[in-house]
């Protein structure tokens, strides 16, 4: 193969195919969840500490910023979980062709969008 062939690896000018979009969102949501663990542990700690602290967390959940953070965490978690299931199915050889990969990515993105919308309804 000609090693001097033109290459373009500039992500800002590449049109990502659908499975690539589903994949990079899986990675971004995972990275976000790495930080989300701190918020979840904080809430878990307070909720288990005492009746007062439990009530304090419930009160805190009335604040718009707490709602926004919770929605963000639930969205990242929901999408990451769905994309993860797709990953496990592909490990079993399901949805590995170009066409079925596209369909799988489409289902993942749509299901992710639905979960994010439902999480928003649940939080607010």
């Amino acid at each position, binding site marked *: 193969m000609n090693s001097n062939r033109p290459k373009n690896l500039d992500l800002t000018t590449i049109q990502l195919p659908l499975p690539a979009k589903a994949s990079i969102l899986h990675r971004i949501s995972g*990275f976000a*969840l790495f930080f989300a663990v*701190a918020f979840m542990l904080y809430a878990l700690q307070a*909720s*288990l500490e005492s*009746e007062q602290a439990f009530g304090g967390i419930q009160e805190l959940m009335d604040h718009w910023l707490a709602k926004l953070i919770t929605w963000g965490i639930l969205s990242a978690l929901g999408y990451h979980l769905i994309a993860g299931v797709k990953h496990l199915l592909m490990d079993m050889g399901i949805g590995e062709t170009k066409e079925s990969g596209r369909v799988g990515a489409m289902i993942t993105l749509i299901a992710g969008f639905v979960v994010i919308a439902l999480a928003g309804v649940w939080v607010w």
Partner: protein
Amino acid sequence: MVNSVTNLGRSGLYDWVVQRLSAVILAIYTLFLFGFVVASPELTFAEWHGLFSQVWMKVFSLAALISICAHAWVGLWTISTDYITGSTALRFLFQLVTASFLFSYLVWGIDILWSV
């Protein structure tokens, strides 16, 4: 190719298995907690505290906590070796910060679970 010295099992296959096993544990734990919260819209402190007082719940939660650490380590290690390829020092620093976070999460989480 960048270093494989810092990957969890020193082997891609081992990491692959760890990533899947921890994923399944985390998925089950997430769905269980979600189901518990949805099933009790007027969740009280007594119910919540009671759940986490059970030994099986401590076992389940600790399994999830360890899974978070292993899963996030493999994930962030992969991110670091994909994007931070120019400087080994910078990549090690990123991995060190990641490990510090995860170790803190682990100790913090154990402290929470065992205070119940």
